[in-house]
């Protein structure tokens, strides 16, 4: 029994011994406990959030049921509340923001990572990242005092270029879905630019060189190889931008016009979920009114998750085989 071979494996097990203190010393156990509680805390906060929104919107949910989502009326005096105009305003302004910001942002990121000299790129990126840190109320002021007057000034140009679209009809007073979409685009641009640039820079050099070595031009290698390689990360930056746009409150409130109407024209004023909650929550009187506003919060939460889910699904199904 007591052969040297049999004794040998026993030696390290004395040191390890499965003792708590050894685990503490090695760092495994505390690390596990700390990280799992961080993860659990995130889940807990999210659940608590949904629970609170759900419970506190009970009055409104019982009174209106699913009709709340499809009603266009928002009349606190008559006690009639519906979410549709706000959902519409939120979705339309966010979509417009992405339509403007995605091509601009990805284009700028390509310029910064692939074409600009490193020093220019770093300086510009620093400025762009500063932009991301500007509080949204400042963007709101910028929108009110610069963007809205500017849009009014170029209204004739907009009309002559885009006027044939049903989405650019009717009078234009400046404060509109359009202005809100544009300021949102400006606000989410830094996210798209700085994340996409980072992702593009992380594409291995030998991917670029492999394309060049086959006779591709610099642009072909960038557009056909580098950008597809970075596609996942770029998509991620767009999701982040979308989430930001859906929930943005202050700047949108200041320029959207705050009129709960659904109109096909982007020139018309509108309202967003975040904006109405911010505007009316403090002065809401009565259980039903408060509860309806809280239910709007629940709707915004669900909307954010829904849109992100749909976008992810879209990516998943359009990802062709053979791509990462």
């Amino acid at each position: 029994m007591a052969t040297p071979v049999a004794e040998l494996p026993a030696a390290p097990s004395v040191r390890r011994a499965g003792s708590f203190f050894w685990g503490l010393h090695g760092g495994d156990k505390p690390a596990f406990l700390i990280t799992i509680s961080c993860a659990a805390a995130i889940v807990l906060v999210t659940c608590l959030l949904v629970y609170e929104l759900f419970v506190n919107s009970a009055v409104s949910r019982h009174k209106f049921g699913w009709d709340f989502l499809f009603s266009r009326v928002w009349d606190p005096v008559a006690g009639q509340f519906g979410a549709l105009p706000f959902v519409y305003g939120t979705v339309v302004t966010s979509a417009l923001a992405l339509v403007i910001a995605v091509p601009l942002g990805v284009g700028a990121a390509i310029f910064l990572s692939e074409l600009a000299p490193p020093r220019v790129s770093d300086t510009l990126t620093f400025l762009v990242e500063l932009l991301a840190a500007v509080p949204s109320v400042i963007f709101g002021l910028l929108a009110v005092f610069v963007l809205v007057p500017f849009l009014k000034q170029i209204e004739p140009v907009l009309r002559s270029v885009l006027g044939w679209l049903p989405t650019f009809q009717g009078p234009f007073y400046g404060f509109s879905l359009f202005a809100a979409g544009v300021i949102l685009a400006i606000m989410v641009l830094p996210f798209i630019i700085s994340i996409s640039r980072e992702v593009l820079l992380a594409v291995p050099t030998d991917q670029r060189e492999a394309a060049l070595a086959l006779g591709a031009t610099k642009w072909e290698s960038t557009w056909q190889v580098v950008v597809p390689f970075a596609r996942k990360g770029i998509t991620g930056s767009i999701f982040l931008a979308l989430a930001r746009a859906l929930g943005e409150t202050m700047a949108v409130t200041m320029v959207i016009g705050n009129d709960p109407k659904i109109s096909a024209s982007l020139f018309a004023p509108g309202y967003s979920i975040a904006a109405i909650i911010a505007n009316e929550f403090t002065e809401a009187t009565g259980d039903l009114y408060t509860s309806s506003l809280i239910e709007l919060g629940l709707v915004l939460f669900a909307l954010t998750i829904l849109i992100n889910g749909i976008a992810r699904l879209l990516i998943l199904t359009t990802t062709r085989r053979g791509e990462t």
Partner: protein
Amino acid sequence: MSTNVSTLQNLAIDMQKGVPMKPAAETSAKLVTTDLNFYYGKFKALHGISLSVPTGAVTALIGPSGCGKSTFLRTLNRMYETVPLTRAEGAILLDNEDLFAIELSALRRRVGMVFQRSNPFPKSIFDNVAYGLRVNGFANKATLQESVEQSLRRAALWDEVKDKLHESAYSLSGGQQQRLCIARALAVNPEALLLDEPCSALDPIATAKIEELILHLKRTCTIVIVTHNMQQAARVADYTGFFLLGKLIEFNATKIIFQTPAQKETEDYVTGRFG
């Protein structure tokens, strides 16, 4: 543009030492560098390299790490131009044509390159091989199909992938990926192929497959291979050049380099007495 072989021989003389950096046997040269200096900014990485790469043969470049093998290789298709502040001085001829006068993408079609780490594109196996053809304007589906098959056969990969051409290139093993990269380079029918330590990340079996492939390819394509593995040079190369600190110390038939080298440094290196 019809310089004869003897003129080339004269070009390929190492000025400093007066040693002809060209194998004694009469062969035509695919690539000839004359007194080639190379700079990364102020740092001079290559010192007066004069070497001629024989057509239809395998030429190996050996030497300790950092001696300038990759740098030299990357001058032959001007890949160094992607690195800012680099500069090459001297002459390089491709089939007697001034390499610096050839349009860049045309040059790179003629002189292909395979990298140290296999680097397939995040596309299907088929699309990887077809990339070079597409980027050079071949869009005809039947032509593509045929070329892709032919290139995969030349890279000895066809039998392994013919049933999964539309799967991701990343589903292949490391050795297969590297052969895919060779197939991708072969698809545009290059006259010469530059390989920079193509087996350094591979196991011995995958390495053996690539070496066998190189021996087949040299009939149709001139090959320059950088390797830090001297056995590999001895196995696959017809000619071998030994680099040290940015200088070409000796260039000759592989057998001579390994058995009766003219220079002391070469002997020390190939016998493992170096450093």
